[in-house]
């Protein structure tokens, strides 16, 4: 049984000006210890997808339909109290901006103690503090700083603390939403390595959410490419790297500088993501797609798969599952 199983999940934002389908019919699954990457431009709904896994879609978002199963139990049916006990203990979430994700008026220690004692009520504050110290140590933060306030730490250190908080109760699944975008490049690598290392040590599954495909390619086993709330492509990172199917994925890959290909011409995808309030009819990518065809404008492609490892949402590939022979592009 997979650790995480998402089935035809729909998340809507019900704004006063209309409804936005932030996540549309998303289905995938994740096993213990696996790493999954969620790639996509900002506004592609990757964070929403991530948050909906712990049922924290921000107002006015609502999970319209679908199932999110953690170890088989559908968390969308759980009462809030049980949901709370899952958050942080089974599933941990690391946020994009470490500067703002700690309570500015609470000491670092307090964050840990609070977390531990919420989930393990019969731990004494002292023990909890002890555990916090050791974790900080393991993250390379001096234990005596446990009584400092967040604003006294640098961004990198705060992200370490966030990671520390995430792994304190060694959860089965850690989600990291753009964990490094707010940090400068050198720190980024350090943080990612740290995450990697911890993951190996504790054997957690990891979902890495990022707009930066390159990071995901090098860190994740599986990759999901999201566009305008839809899964466009879903494959193992090797597969994807070798043969990206969807024109959008290809576009993304072309925009990554690659040392191996010396004579690579970098190219960005023309145009910009659609207005989610009124997405284009048919395939949502066709306005920007170099291979756009008649049917793309009319009807919406489905996610079709070949083998269990590679799925794509594009008319360039035959509806008949099995053959992944590309149709001649002239046709």
């Amino acid at each position, binding site marked *: 049984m997979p650790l995480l199983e998402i089935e035809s999940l729909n998340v809507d934002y019900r*704004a*006063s*000006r209309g409804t936005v389908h932030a996540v549309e019919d998303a289905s995938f699954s994740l096993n213990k210890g696996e790493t999954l990457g969620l790639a996509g431009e900002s506004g592609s709904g990757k964070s929403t997808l991530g948050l909906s896994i712990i049922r924290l879609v921000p*107002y*006015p978002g609502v999970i319209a339909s679908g199932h999110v199963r953690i170890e088989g139990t559908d968390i969308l049916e759980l009462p809030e109290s049980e949901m709370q006990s899952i958050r942080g203990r089974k599933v941990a979430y690391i946020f994009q901006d470490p500067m703002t994700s700690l309570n500015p008026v609470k000491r670092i220690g307090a964050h840990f103690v609070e977390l531990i004692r919420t989930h393990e009520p019969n731990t004494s504050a002292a023990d909890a503090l002890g555990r916090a110290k050791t974790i900080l140590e393991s993250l390379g933060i001096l234990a005596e700083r446990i009584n400092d306030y967040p604003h006294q730490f640098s961004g990198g250190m705060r992200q370490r603390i966030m990671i520390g908080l995430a792994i304190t109760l060694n959860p089965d699944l850690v989600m990291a939403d753009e964990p490094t975008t707010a940090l400068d490049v050198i720190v980024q690598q350090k943080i990612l390595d740290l995450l990697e290392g911890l993951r190996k040590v504790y054997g957690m599954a990891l979902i890495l959410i990022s707009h930066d495909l390159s990071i995901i390619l090098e860190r994740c086993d599986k990759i999901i490419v999201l566009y305008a709330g839809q899964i466009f492509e879903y494959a193992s990172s090797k597969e994807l790297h070798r043969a990206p199917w969807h024109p959008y994925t290809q576009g993304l890959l072309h925009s990554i500088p690659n040392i191996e290909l010396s004579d690579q011409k970098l190219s960005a995808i023309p145009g910009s993501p659609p207005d989610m309030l009124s997405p284009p009819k048919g395939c949502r990518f066709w306005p920007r797609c170099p291979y756009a065809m008649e049917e793309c404008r009319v009807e919406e492609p489905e996610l079709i798969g070949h083998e269990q490892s590679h799925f794509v949402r594009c008319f360039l590939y035959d509806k008949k599952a099995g053959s992944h022979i590309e149709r001649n592009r002239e046709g």
Partner: protein
Amino acid sequence: MKKTKTKLRSILSTLMPGLSSLSKRGPSGWMVLVGIAIVSSIIVMTAIAPWISPYSPILSRVGPIRAAPSLQFPLGTNQLGQDMLSRILCGGSLMLQVSALSVLICFLIGVPIGLFASYAGGMVDSTTSLVIDAVYAFPGLVIAIAIAAMLGPGVINTALSIAVVYIPSYFRIVRSQVLSIKELTYVEAARAVGAKWYTILFRYVFPNVIPSIVVVVTINFADAVLTAAGLTFIGLGVAKNIPDWGWDLTDGRQYLGSGAWWIITFPGIMIVLLALGFTLIGEGLSEMLNPKLQR
């Protein structure tokens, strides 16, 4: 509920195009709409009062003294046997005049001072701030009372005494805005290309201040109404031969004990409504204009 909403919307949109767009702005939009509805209907009522009021509002003994509401006198009569309904219909004009005047004065004085002082900065700014804060840090009503007593009764005098109290809040809001806008890049840019200070002030800064001023104006309207009522309550109202909710409210008090609740209740409600109308507009706007609250 829904029906009435749509009905109201259609009415308003025919009344004034653009209002309907407000109703799309969620609850805050609706607050503004309702506020506008209340205020405008009161204004209209007061305007047409002379034609629709059944009796002269100041003619005494048109009926028995302190008569309870009846068919002949729907809102009863007061201690002089004047018809309360007529007085309610006409009684708004004074409040409206006073509040409108005081807002005008506040605006004409507070905004320019705020703009210039804070734009000039330095000594000018700090000294004006000191003075303004001195006034601001003080219970406005006391100042209003003192000045009202000094100037003596009268619409303009009352308006003035109220204005003095609220000028500081204009100054402060304008100042805070200007100080932030001053540093914005496009203002910097304008300065860099050598735009004159007044161009910057009025072309670039002022337009950005307006929204927050609008909020203050509406809130000020509400406060002016309340303060005017308060001054009358303390005995600094205008002469008694003009129908005024404030006076009726104040008088009504001494007839409560003998059970004449209608003398005080209706003018009280009217004042609350008027203030409420303005407050709704103000709060709605401020919520709409507050970027932090936009979702």
